[in-house]
């Protein structure tokens, strides 16, 4: 348990720092790499939360696919690899109070509702079969739907992105 806790805190701190860098760095590629750190940290946290399958998916989809998309996007839009000065809005400070207010709201709610409630000690890892049973059982319809969504996204994105 303690080990898990230590792991959590280390990963959490790294994630937070990385996340902050994502939103503050002046280099688009750096931001993408910091995002990789956050996503990887998240995957690690999922493992701590006994969600192996999701963690794997996270790595595959996010780090494997989405990050590549981001990098492609960056390159296709000819962003400079180095630092750029023009990435932020002039009113970026507006984000701080908004974020803080949101955090206060969330924090208040979370503290008042969950207080010092603990997670179950004996966390058995959720098996992939269980998940698949769920997906192909009650959650079948969204799954079907998702296939059409992805098709539409692909078709649409291609049409939009291609030169003509």
């Amino acid at each position: 348990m303690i080990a898990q806790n230590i792991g959590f805190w280390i990963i959490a701190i790294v994630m937070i720092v990385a996340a902050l860098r994502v939103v503050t760095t002046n280099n688009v590629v750096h931001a993408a790499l910091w995002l990789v750190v956050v996503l990887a940290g998240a995957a690690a946290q999922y493992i701590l939360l006994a969600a192996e399958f999701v963690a794997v998916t996270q790595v595959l989809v996010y780090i494997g696919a989405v990050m590549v998309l981001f990098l492609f996007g960056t390159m296709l839009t000819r962003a400079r690899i180095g630092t750029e000065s023009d990435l932020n809005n002039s009113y970026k400070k507006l984000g701080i109070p908004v974020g803080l207010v949101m955090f206060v709201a969330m924090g208040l709610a979370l503290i008042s509702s969950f207080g010092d409630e603990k997670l179950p000690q004996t966390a058995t890892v959720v098996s992939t079969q269980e998940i698949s049973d769920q997906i192909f059982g009650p959650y079948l319809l969204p799954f079907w739907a998702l296939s059409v969504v992805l098709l539409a996204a692909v078709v649409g994105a291609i049409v939009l992105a291609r030169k003509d």
Partner: protein
Amino acid sequence: MNLFASESEVLAPLMSGWFLEHAWLIPVVPAIAFALIILVGKRLPMKGSELGVLSMFSSLVLAAGAGYQWIQRTNSATEEQFVEPVIKSWSWWQSGGFNFGIGQHIDGLSVLVLIVVAFISTLVQIYSLEYLRGDRRYTHFFAALTLFSGGMLTMVLADNMILFLLGWEIMGLCSFMLIGHWWEDDANSKAALKAFFTVRTGDAGLLVGITMLYFSANDWTQEHLGVSGFSIRGISAWALSGEPNSTVITIAAVALFIACIGKSGQFPLHTWLPDAMAGPTPVSSLLHSSTMVVAGVYLVARLYPVFFVGLDILGSGGNLIMVIGAITIVISAALAFVQNDIKRVLAYSTVSQLGYMMLGLGAGAWMPAVFHIFTHAFFKACLFLGAGSISHSASHHSFDMKRDMGGLRKVMPITFVTWIISTLALCGVFPFSGFFSKDEIIDNVGHNGYTNFMIIGLIGAFMTAAYMTRATYLTFFGEPRGASAGQMVHDSHDLHDTHATHDTHATHVADDSHDSGEAHGPHESGLLITVPLMILSVLALGSGFLNATPFGESWERMKLWVEPRHSEFAPELHHAPFMWSKASLSLVIVFAGIAVSWLISSRLFTKRDPRLVGLTQRVKLLGLGHKFLVNKYYLDALYEKVIVRSIAYPIASAAYWFNQNILDGILHGLANSTRKLSGWVYKNIDQRVVDGTVNNSATFTKSVGAAAQPTQSGKVSQYGALLFSAAAVAALVLVIINT
């Protein structure tokens, strides 16, 4: 009803007759004639005038028949018996528990006034056939004249206040149409406007008065008489029943009296009446001397119990009616002195005479006042028509005594004689009719204990005599001047003389068909004009004998026929016993007035004539031998310098100034300030505040829009910021609430 039933059973049954029962036809005839004139008048050979004359004549016959039967009815009653009026009423419309009736209320008073109105109307219409011949709105004129008579007759025989009001207002309307008959000129139409408007101002009082009386009296009248609170008979009985709350009836009486002030040209609403002379002379004669303006007096006489109780007549040292009447007598008589316009003199004289009637009614002298309505109608109509005759045939349509008249007695003998008779009647000289009525009023005022008012009455009599003499002198004596001397028309008329232009206007059109060639010199008028004059003058002379108190009870026919005997419906009144001593006093005063005025007039006006200067000098020198003239001479200077110059003129002028500047000023000021107020209200309240609020709310809406617009900056991040911050704030608020 039951209350009185037992009583009347004992008494002798009253006679009635077809004419009495069908008196309601009297106003219906002119009403129908009016419609016919409007519809087909223009196509008739005499352009509708024959219908007017015919209808008035039929009304006169009906009225006379009713009069005859009424006399029989009174004769059939016993000495002390109350002669029940012949009341017929039909339901006109009802709604919400209100029953508005229509019907006739025939008693002595109404029969008397009916006959007078029908008679004068007939004569005036005949007179107008000639006077307005060729006028471009000849048909309309007769239509309006007929409708006017119809209105007046309706009012006179109305059995309830609503019908009364109807007639009253129709007269107002017709006066508007008739005064403004030559509306091409602004002055005329303004006079018409002023007349109708002033009368309408008073009418607000009538509306209020009727309303108050109705609601106060209705319960009582329904219970006791089974009639509504509009019924004149009901109101009268209620007023005398001792039932009414004194405040209510007083206010109601005052309200009604305000209407009378407006209609009868009493002080301070008399100013419209002289201006109303802008109408054609027959109109002046009919409306503003003998009929319409009498409506106010008639109202007081008709609802006498209300005023009697409400204003505490005979019960106090003076009342509103008397005060107003007395002020009117003096004020208007004084005004008559400074008029150059013959019709205006007559107009002021009318006002003054109406003041007498009011004074009489206010003082409890009901019978003399009513009798004065009767006699005054004849002689005043005669005077007006005489003035019209002069203007028509002698002074080339001018009414200016000083400039265009003088010495006409020779050229217009008939007019002159009738004028003199009527003037003497107006002055109250024995045995002319005015004496029997006016003197009675003054006598009774004194008899009822109002000595001060009697003195005012006597002063008024003096003044009346004086100004009438002045007018007569200027018109008929001395040397012809201006138009009456055969001079051509003046192109530039005085300001207050504009109506004269319009009498001209009228006949200019007629010049081709008019054979008399009036432009060539003064002459006597045609038969259509003189015959009415003669008839009227005969009546001016003789009508007084119908109630000739000096000759004893048996001569007081009118009192017998007209005055209601004391009953539940009529207050108890006493009559002053006639005494020659008192009568001679007033006669002396009248003669003094005539004499003084004559002397002054002859001196004054003769002197002013430059052609007579030499003559005057000679008279002055020769006067040593003529005591009478010499005396006149000395007095002349005295009067001229002391009385006339220092008293009469200043007083009269002051009165006139007061009239023109203060009263009229107040009226005009009121009108102006109302106009200004309305302008201000419109500009500032309506357009700025009320409308402004609306328009500003639109502006406000738009500025809200402008304030909200920056949120729509077009920048995604800002949109995002808004989205997240709104969500955050909402979450925070609701989280805090629910924690």
